[in-house]
Structures are given as structure tokens and as C-alpha cells.
């Protein structure tokens, strides 16, 4: 017992001060992309065709990036062409699929829930997580939110074991053919009113498996989504930031 207490004292207090204090992310962390404007049309064209996941497209004469499809690749062809650069900004979550399509410097982050939903869930949000083809990176970095560094419980958010106990569903993975019906069943088992959160590039748009015939390119129209958390996988602070925005805590 004494050894346990001594070790406990030595390990110290490790819970982060987020959201009061912004987290220090590694220098090489790739966050919100910044688009270069007014480049030659050929450069843009090369950037658009260079992305293996069709995250880039043209918006008139300027470039548009879909953060729902972007994997924040280290070797992004568009970065090499100078058409975009990744900032260190981990805040990426959005409320609408359209908001993920970024055309200029203003990115619309997730809104808080409406008054009625906030009254219900603002101080206590229980989520059921379903992995529908997720590679265990999204899942692992959601599990991390439960550790003492992030301590999700202090915000009243918790992952629960049964959909019957849940206020919403958090989906990862591109929704494989083999998981579609289990996903829909789990959603149906959650009492109304309920939230849907799509976490990670796979759940939003299929991610690296957007061209697979065994997967559905993410949730798409299968379920009505309330919060999109981009990334491959999203950094735990990206996910936490999104959840807190949804609850109006940031």
C-alpha cells in the first residue's frame, strides 16, 4: 500500500488544463490546411489530380479542400506544389458536411447544440461508440480521452457500454458492408432524441478506403450527423475540442 502511495506521489498530477490552456502539439503536427491563392491554373490542376483521395477540387479559380476527405498526408502532393500548407491548428470539427469544404481562411467550427438539446445533454452526455471498419487508430485515440491526461469525465462526457444508456452514437470507420446493419441496429436502440458524431476521415467520407467496394464511403446519408471530427485519426484534442464546442463549453 505504501509503495502504491509513494508511486502515486512520484507520478504526480498529469491532467491537462484544457480548454483553459491550449495544448502544446508537436512541431510536425499537421492541422488546419491553409490554401495558397491565385496560383497558376496548371498548379491547381496538378494539385487536384495529385490527391489520391479526391479531397481537392476547384471552386471557380481557387482551390477548395474537403477536410472530410483529407487525410492530412505527410507527403501531400499539393503541399509539394505550394498549393497548400498545414498549420498547427488542431481545431477542425464542424457541424455540417458543407462546412468541411474549405475555400478561404475562414473555417466555420462546430456550433453548439440548440437550447433544448443543450438542456438535455449540456452537463451529461453519454455516447455509444461503434467501429464500422475503423483501423483501431481512431478507436485508440478516443480511448485516450478517458485517461487521466484528458479526463473526459470532468466534462460530463462518457462512453457507455450499451446503446440503451446512450444519448448518441460516435461512429468510426468507413462503414463496411459487414457492419452496416449492426451500426443501424445500434443507432435504432438509442432512445430519442439522439446525436450522431462521425469521427475520422473514414467515417466522414471513406478515408483511405473511399474506393473500396466493401465499404460505404462513411456514414453519408445513412444517419443524420451532428458533429464531424476530421483527421486520420483525429488528434485527441481535435476530438475533445469538437465535443466541447457541441456542448457550448468553448
Amino acid at each position, binding site marked *: 500500500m505504501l509503495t502504491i502511495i509513494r508511486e502515486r506521489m512520484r507520478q504526480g498530477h498529469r491532467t491537462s488544463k484544457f480548454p483553459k490552456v491550449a495544448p502544446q502539439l508537436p512541431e510536425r503536427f499537421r492541422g488546419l490546411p491553409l490554401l495558397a491563392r491565385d496560383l497558376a491554373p496548371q498548379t491547381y490542376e496538378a494539385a487536384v489530380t495529385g490527391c489520391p483521395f479526391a479531397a481537392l477540387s476547384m471552386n471557380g479559380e481557387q482551390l477548395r479542400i474537403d477536410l472530410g476527405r483529407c487525410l492530412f498526408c*505527410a507527403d501531400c502532393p499539393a503541399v509539394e506544389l505550394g498549393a497548400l500548407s498545414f498549420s498547427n491548428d488542431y481545431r477542425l470539427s464542424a457541424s455540417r458536411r458543407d462546412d468541411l469544404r474549405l475555400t478561404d481562411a475562414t473555417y466555420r467550427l462546430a456550433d453548439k447544440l440548440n437550447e433544448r438539446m443543450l438542456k438535455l445533454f449540456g452537463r451529461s452526455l453519454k455516447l455509444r461508440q461503434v467501429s464500422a471498419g475503423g483501423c483501431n487508430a481512431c478507436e485508440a485515440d478516443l480511448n485516450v480521452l478517458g485517461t487521466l491526461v484528458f479526463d473526459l469525465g470532468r466534462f460530463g462526457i462518457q462512453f457507455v457500454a450499451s446503446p440503451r444508456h446512450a444519448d448518441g452514437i460516435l461512429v468510426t470507420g468507413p462503414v463496411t458492408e*459487414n457492419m452496416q446493419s449492426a451500426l443501424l441496429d*445500434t443507432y435504432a436502440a438509442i432512445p430519442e432524441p439522439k446525436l450522431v458524431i462521425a469521427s475520422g476521415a473514414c467515417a466522414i467520407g471513406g478515408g483511405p478506403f473511399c474506393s473500396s467496394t466493401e465499404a460505404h464511403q462513411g456514414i453519408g446519408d445513412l444517419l443524420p450527423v451532428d458533429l464531424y471530427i476530421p483527421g486520420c485519426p483525429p488528434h485527441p484534442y481535435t476530438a475533445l475540442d469538437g465535443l466541447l464546442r457541441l456542448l457550448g463549453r468553448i
Partner: protein
Amino acid sequence: MSLSKLFRFRHGFAVPLAELPQLDYAQFSESLLADVAADARVACYFGRPLPKGLELYAILAHDWKGELALLRTKVDHSIPSLTPQCPQLHLFERELAEQYGVRPEGHPWLKPVRFHKSWIDTADLWGRPPGVHPIPGDMEFYRVEGEEVHEVAVGPVHAGVIEPGHFRFQCHGEEVMHLEISLGYQHRGIEQLLSGGPHPAGIYQLETTAGDTSIGHATAYCQLLESLAGNEPPVRAQAIRAIALELERLANHVGDIGALAGDVGFLPTASFCGRLRGDYLNLTAELCGSRFGRGLVRPGGLGFDLDGALPQTIADRLSALERDTRGAIDLCFDTPSVLARFEGTGTVSTDDAEALGLVGVAARACGLVRDARLHHPFGAWEEGFDTPVIEVDGDVFARGNVRRREIYASLALIKKLLKRLPEGPVRSPLGPLAGDSLAVSFCEGWRGEVVHAALTDATGRIARYKIVDPSFHNWSGLAMALRGQQISDFPLCNKSFNLSYCGFDL
């Protein structure tokens, strides 16, 4: 007598298919069984469709020779199953049946593996309607009959933040008589997506084959492409790949020990290790911006260098982490009530482990010396790895203790590698891939050996890409571990294996 051809696979080495004799199936099976009876095990076994019929390849690992035996043959719609004589082939033959409709006659357990449509136009062996996607878990489960026997079905959706899979227990009271595991829910068709490549998206699909083994699978993939292109990445890149692989092992092993402690209700270690796991992931993020090592390992070398102040930063942070890690882990391994729950729980015998062809942590916990870093080294491992961690009891404690000792070994290895980091570039351009060739690559990921094999067509495109995640062999080990156990010990046993669903499902 065995007609297999032995090869020593290293970086930059591929076998022209013309050098591989085309055996008939009788010779093929006789050679395979003779090799396995001697000292080999099945590392990989796969088919490649021909205009008429199917070509079969077997890759057998002769661990102590450090060599691989290659066999190939041509078959039609049906083959005599070798599973009764060689149980470690059971899933490989089921896979073949599901992918190409080849019936292994006499297979004792012929059920679908991943529940997808067959890859070629052929009759479905299970009589499922054509044109409709198979329903996962739709198969005959093994059933024990008896007055007080009951069945427990768990999944696909589980209680935690975890991937999906279906578990069917046959129980008498609390005691589990049999566990059958039915997977496939995570199937994304990765091997199919990789054919015709290398595609620009390929490396990302490999990094997410099993997201917790991004470095392991990406390294195996890059080694394979480099072998087919006949070039070796710069030595500095090889050393940094080894460092990243050990960081991945550290993060996962530390997390697993925390989870094991959590499952027996020992919370100090559970919460310390949960935090420490993240700290190890953050070291990988310092290196490449991603906690899972995405973007680091690239064909021809690396996407990032370990330059500037980084080696020192990582060394310093590792020393601090080592102190905390040892404190957290020793606490748990010094507590009698924890050991009482670990010891004698979920035992797999050495004989069963050998018969099922277990690999990695699960095999080393059963006394089997199986470590690709020792037997089939690529890259930096070639110049010496001589300390595989072996335990003999085959129980939860043994699997936990292999992890504990490997954590300390990895910390020492990284320090050594950081001190002797070679100078030079970290990437060299990859040439075109050799045509009509076969290459095999091994990488000892944190769960066990990741084996990739690829066949190229005449133009050097990938004709067939085969991935064997360690979980493919080891799920059967978990099923064996549960025999005679209390069903309430399933979470603990499961955690002690901590296998990948998506690595199995592909």
C-alpha cells in the same frame, strides 16, 4: 521428400518466378508436410487466379536457418485438404475457399473467414445466393448439446471503444467448453485494392490495415517494394525505421499492461500506463507529426528525418518515461493479488501453440522462440538482434511478462540505435519493380510477425498482394486459451492477446 526451394530473403531480393518449379499438388503437399514435420511453419499461403484454375503459393519459415521455403503448384476447383495433418493451415485453406471457390476436401471446419463475395466468377461453396453480399456471422456454429449447457453470443458491437467481432461461447455453468470466433465485420477489401499497384493510395491503405501497427505494416510494404525494385534504402532510414518500430511496440505494450491491470481491478497501474502510452505515441508524433507514425515510413526510405535536436529530445524524454514506466509496471507485477489473477489463467500449451502456428508475443509466452527480428531480419535488424524474450507458461502472466520484459528491451534498443545513428540521406528513389517475380517481407510488429508477399506481372505491376497480420494466426490461440476457463475471465484473456480485428479482416 521435400522439393521446396530455400531462399534467404533480404532487402532488395526478389525471386524471378521462372526459378520456382511448378510442382503437381501431390508433390506440393508432400513437400509442405515434410518441411513442417521437420522444423518449418506456414508463414503465408495464398492463391493467384489463372485464366484457367488457380496457382497456389506456400511460404514456409525455417526459423533457425533464417530461410524461407517456397512452393508453388496449380490446382482446379478442389484439393485434398492438408488441415487434418497440418492444423496451422486451417484458416489459409478457408480463405482460399472463400476467395476462389476452391474446395479443400476433408477440411474439418470449412466455414467462411471474412464474409465477402468470391473474387472470381465461381460457385459459392456455402450455397449462398449469387449477387447478394454474404451476411457476416451467417454460418453453422459449433454447438455443444446437453441439459445444462448454454450458449453465450457476444458482438459484433462490444461494450468498450473497440472493434467489432462475434464470439460464441459454449458453457456449462461458468465454465467455457468451447469458444468460436467469427470475424469479417471490418473487411475493407485491402488486398483487392492493392492489386494492379503500386497505387498512390497504397501506402495509406497499408498504414490503416491495422492502425495500431501502422509502422509495422508500412515497413513490411516498403521492404517489399524495395525488394521488387532491387534497391536498399539508406542505412540511416533503416535505423530510424527500427526506432519507430520499437516506439510502436513500447506504446502498445505499455497500454496493454495498463489494460491488463485494469481488467483485474488494479487501478494505479491502469491509470499510469494509460497516460504513459500516450507519451510514447507523442514521441512518434515528434518524429512525423502523427501519433501513429503515419507518413514516416515511405518506399525508398522515410518521409521525415530524425534531425536537429530531435535525437537528444527523444533520448531525454525516454529516460524520464522509463523511470515512470518501470514504477508503474513493477507496482502491478509486485502485487500478489494481481499475480494470483494472472497466473494459470488462459493457458495455451506449447504443443497447441506450435500446432496452430502462433507468432509474436503469444508464441513467445508459450516457450516458442519466434521473432522475425532474430530469424528473418530486414534492415537494421540484420546487424544483430539476439535477445528475444521467452516465457514458458503460456498463461496471462506469461503474455504480460513478455510485454514487460520487451518494454525494457525496447528502451535499451532505442537508446543504442539513437547513439549509433548513421549519417546520410533518409530516402533514395525507388526504381521500377521487377516483372514476374515474387518477394516476401517480414517485420516483427508489436503483436508479432507481419508478413507481406507480392507477385508481379510481366510489366512489374502487382498481380497479387498478400498480407498476413499476426492476428491471423493468433485468434485461434485465444479460442484455445478459453477452454476450461470461467467465462468471466474472457476479457482478461482477450486483453492478454489483444489481437487486431481489422488486421485479420483486411
